[in-house]
């Protein structure tokens, strides 16, 4: 396991999560007007952008590998990668719950849910089109939702799952499905 830990630079994961929590705490309660395509004056909570930190970093770390060695390895590299993704997702949700309860930061839980969604989307895109497409899909998904998903100040359309409040169960269902698909996609297709 040690070579896997080193090659994937897993030491960076706690740093990324710490930065994510710090950003969430720093921007809570702050909203910004966005150049909406469909609404007149759309504002969005800045915490909605924090999930990009995690959903860009994890695919980047998974991409650090030794492909030839990994293809012939007997060790379960794909399962280790899946474990990394699941552990990160669990920590993000835990952080969200803690911030939501300790600091009344309800958006932190919604941000955690969005990490699951965007990470799942990124990993799915990575499976077929590679790392550049993975991060592009996550960022594109977020920005398209922000630009087109609001029909008023902080009033999202039903389909804009990334902008729904923490209590929206359909959004959680989408997030869990996306993450499950993303976890499946990690290592899928390897010989």
């Amino acid at each position, binding site marked *: 396991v040690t070579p896997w830990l080193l090659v994937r630079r897993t030491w960076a994961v706690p740093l990324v999560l710490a930065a994510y929590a710090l950003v969430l705490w720093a921007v809570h309660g702050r909203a*910004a*007007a966005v150049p909406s395509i469909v609404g007149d004056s759309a504002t969005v909570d*800045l915490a909605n952008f924090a999930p990009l930190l995690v959903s860009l970093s994890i695919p980047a770390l998974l991409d650090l590998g030794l492909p030839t060695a990994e293809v012939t390895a007997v060790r379960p590299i794909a399962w280790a990668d899946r474990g990394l993704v699941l552990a990160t997702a669990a920590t993000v949700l835990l952080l969200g719950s803690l911030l939501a309860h300790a600091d009344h930061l309800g958006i932190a839980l919604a941000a955690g849910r969005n990490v699951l969604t965007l990470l799942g989307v990124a990993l799915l895109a990575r499976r077929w089109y590679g*790392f550049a497409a993975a991060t592009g899909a996550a960022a594109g998904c977020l*920005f398209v939702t922000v630009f087109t998903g609001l029909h008023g100040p902080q009033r999202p359309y039903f389909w804009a799952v990334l902008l729904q409040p923490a209590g929206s169960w359909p959004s959680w269902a989408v997030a869990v499905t996306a993450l499950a698909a993303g976890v499946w996609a990690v290592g899928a297709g390897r010989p």
Partner: protein
Amino acid sequence: VTVFPGAALRTFRHSPAVWLALPVVLMGVFYSGDVGTSGPPALGGVAAYSAGFGISPLGGALAAFAAWETGRLRAGQVWRQTPARGRYRVAWSGLLPVTVTALAADVAVLAAACVRVGAVPGPGDLPDFGMAVATQVALMLVGAGLGSVLHRGLAVPLALAGAMLWLMVPPSLATPWPRYLTGMPLDSPTPTDVPAPHVLLAPVLLAAGITAGVLLAASPVLQPRGSRGRRLLRPLVAVAVTAAAAFPAYALVRNAGYDTPMVPRAGDQTCAGEAPVICVPSEMRGTIPVLRDAAKRAVPGLVSVGLDRPRRIAYVSRQARTEPGTWRVYVQEPLSGQQALAAVAEAGVPAEPRCPALPDDMARPSPRPLRALLLLAAGVDRATVRSWEGPAALATAEKEEAKSLPARRRWLRSTRAALASCDRATLERAEHA
């Protein structure tokens, strides 16, 4: 520099410019339609402002596009090798599709804004648009810089998110000055006022600093030769040059409030008639006959209640210096006879001054009774004055109307002084009165 036709043209074949250009242009045209629709008169400055507003959000897409294009050079290990052409020349070839896309978008958005507003900006109207273009160039270069040092998978979303957050976050902060550094035009010029030059200069200065920083960091002189010290030199130089521009830029806007600081517009005014002369911005010369008729009807009555006879009635900026005997009016097109009458009457009501030394909750005298008296004197019927200013203000005005001329003059003088005052004692006296 690469000649446009030839080898450089081939870069378009491998570039997303072919499918990205149209959405970028359409997005810019769409956003420019969000502002600058306040109605006539058609001002070139409003068209330039509207176009500048429209092209600002494109900075994110163009920065990401630039990161993608220079990421291609990085992936091809062009920077690690020793190209026969100069490094800037190689970078320029790589960025040519981005530049052409940006240029096409800017020209299309400006043309669409001109058509929609109905006016073509003159050279004096272009700073708003120029500021947005300068910021766009800086964002593109930051994107190009990111694409040169990071994997495309990280550089593209970082460039997109960074540029969009740069444009979106500062205007949402409680501190007002950061919003003037983003390079996004915030307030439209009016027939009498335009954004202050220092506010437009600040983001251009910052953009120039960022541009110089990225270009210097990419300079062959600063290329690493292996040692960690040499490698650190590039980001250090980029940050130092950017900071050197950021400090004077901050100094230019640090005192700006939530509304964009404006200065009187240096445009020609059209004046006509005598005793009084009527002056309006040239684009509004159509309002002169209506204003002249209103002045003929209203001035004798206004003089009879105690105002001095005007030599000039002018629609000019509140900040513009005027000759003694000038009545400052505010008019909008289209202007009806009744509106012109009210505009001339309200010239006798002083504008509320800005009093930073006074507390926000300091009570100020109401201008309604004075306005009601002047409207009655100008010949506006009582029912209209009641509906505009309220029954209480009309009652006070009628009481003053019934007084002798010297007593009415005294009231007029003290009320106007109180309305224009920032002196606490004067305001408290007026409140008790």
